[in-house]
């Protein structure tokens, strides 16, 4: 009975998120109609600039459903980008092995964090905080200076546009221009679908919810709670690896201060998407919309164009506040009913 109510609450929060996203995007289309806010390409840009965040948000959601958290992702992205840049530019390693090495590093990173959380019973926040320090410091050890990527293969991946066969418009010269996406978006969306199916229809996916919802009961039902947690962190580590590669394809370089505060973006996206930090409740589709909402807020600010950097922060926080409070009030009303 309780479980049923919880699931209902999840879909309810998800619904709020989706409705609010479209409402917000609609407002943007009206406000900035002259600047082309409503163009298909602008909509796709939300995905293009946030492909990495989507993937990392998936990992974050999975970990959060188990009742944990991972605040090392921002630093890991910096380390991943720096590793890619260093290996390809200074280390003379090809693009493919470099990418594979970053993926392997992600898995190892997840394995260590997962072991400390699941088998040593250390609080996830502290473990991943240490991971955050470690990865950021490691980035500085690899190189203190910024490294830009010029590797031909990697650049080719980054610049490969995929044109969509619809949604185009005719420009001034009378040429039909179709909107495009990058392969990063395809990868991100494929992973999203895979994660959705995994969470909903596989044994592992369901056991993640069980462990996060009530660890004690999960244990009594015969689930290997520690193993499930470890696996969740390994999956998260792998997704961090993928995410940092996608992020790097967008920024094409590595530097120490990169992706600072990225972990908060990922956490905020998950939370806006209806995932609870207390565990047991969450959905990757919600996370996708969480990322899109964050991206829309940023697009608002870019289109507005005159805000100073501090107003950007305050605006994002105000919208975040509005969103979180609205969500909480709606959830409370629903509960009372």
């Amino acid at each position: 009975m309780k479980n049923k109510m919880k699931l209902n609450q999840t879909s309810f929060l998800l619904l709020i998120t989706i409705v609010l996203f479209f409402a917000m995007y609609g407002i943007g289309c009206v406000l900035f109609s002259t600047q082309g806010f409503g163009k298909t390409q602008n909509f796709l840009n939300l995905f293009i600039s946030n492909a990495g965040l989507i993937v990392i948000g998936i990992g974050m959601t999975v970990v959060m459903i188990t009742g944990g958290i991972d605040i090392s992702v921002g630093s890991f992205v910096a380390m991943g980008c720096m590793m890619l840049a260093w290996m390809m530019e200074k280390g003379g390693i090809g693009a493919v092995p470099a990418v594979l090495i970053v993926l392997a590093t992600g898995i190892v990173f997840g394995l260590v964090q997962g072991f400390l959380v699941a088998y040593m019973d250390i609080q996830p926040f502290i473990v991943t905080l240490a991971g955050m320090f470690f990865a950021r410091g490691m980035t500085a050890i690899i190189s203190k200076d910024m490294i830009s990527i010029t590797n031909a293969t990697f650049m080719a991946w980054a610049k490969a546009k995929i044109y969509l066969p619809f949604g185009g418009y005719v420009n001034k010269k009378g040429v039909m221009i179709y909107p495009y996406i990058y392969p990063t978006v395809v990868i991100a969306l494929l992973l999203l679908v895979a994660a959705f199916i995994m969470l909903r229809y596989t044994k592992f996916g369901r056991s993640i919810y069980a462990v996060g919802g009530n660890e004690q009961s999960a244990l009594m039902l015969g689930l290997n709670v520690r193993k499930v947690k470890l696996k969740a962190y390994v999956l998260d580590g792998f997704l961090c690896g993928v995410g940092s590669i996608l992020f790097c394809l967008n920024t094409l370089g590595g530097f120490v201060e990169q992706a600072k505060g990225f972990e908060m973006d990922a956490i905020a996206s998950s939370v806006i998407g209806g995932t609870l930090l207390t565990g047991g409740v969450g959905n990757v589709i919600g996370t996708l919309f969480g990322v899109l909402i964050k991206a829309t807020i940023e697009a608002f600010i870019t289109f507005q164009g005159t805000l100073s950097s501090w107003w950007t922060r305050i605006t994002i926080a105000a919208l975040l506040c509005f969103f979180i409070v609205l969500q909480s009030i709606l959830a409370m009303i629903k509960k009372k009913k």
Partner: protein
Amino acid sequence: MKNDTFKKITSQRLFLPIFCLALVLLVNILTTPNFFAIEVRDGMLYGYIIDIINRASELVILAVGMTLVVSASAGTDISVGAIMAVSAAVCCNILTGGERAATVYANPLILGFIAAIVVGIAIGCFNGFLVAKLNIQPMVATLIMFTAGRGIAQLITDGQITYVRVDSYRTLGASIPGIPVPTPFIVAMIVVAVTALLLKKTALGMYIQAVGINKKSSRLVGIKAIMIIFLTYAYCGFCSGLSGLIASSRIYSADANNIGLNMELDAILAVAIGGNSLGGGKFSIAGSVIGAYTIQALTTTLYAMHVSSDQVPVYKAIVVVIIVALQSPGFARWRKSLAQKKVKEAA
């Protein structure tokens, strides 16, 4: 018999945190022989140890507030660093009278201090309202101020660093003439003492733990759970405002981007290293204070060993993992099974 006393000592709640702090300090005997040397210059104490107790002051104050928040609401306040920046900006802006630099006070010093503390408390109340009344998860609720705080601080100081070049402004962050101990240390000790007294002499300490352990049942026995949680956040805001003032006084300016940067992480770490559960409930202020000094001792040790500042985090991470792992239930379990094996072998 001897074994018993040893067991008694090691089973003390604060044994492991103190042991870890001692271990960090001991490393210095080998690497930096003059680490424990303290000298007196111009009536002031100098040395690495003094540096540690001086530099850790803000962290100690934050850790006290954070401990209460963690205990009552089973969540963390990640906005403390940002609150520090806001309170510093408010104070400096009042003292300079809205200018970006000043050599005389435009308003009385005390006004600046009070305003800064009030702002700290106000932000704390905002966080408390979101967490206690609206039932928003603590980390998410404080994420709002975490994001907005530095923006607000920049808004106040117009995006520039605001300097207060008056000698008396530096007292709080340096020293009072005639007293050899750094002022921040004294302030930190006062905060710790007052908080400890407040919690011990009134029922507040017990209420906070009760709410942290079980919010629903504590409400049923007549504790105003919402009020208690709200108060801990307000108090945490007060602590953040105060440490913002100290940090600002150290550099006699308000730097919206750098004051209190990453302090929230260190404060949470201090709470955990002190042996407190981030899941709420039982807490020990002394543990958190020891945790705060451990973190600062570690940082100072690394600097004494000439590790460059952007590489410090790597070593910090490794030591932190070791310290936390030593205190973890997983390690205790492993030790227990090892002991049992030994007993079996002996038999």
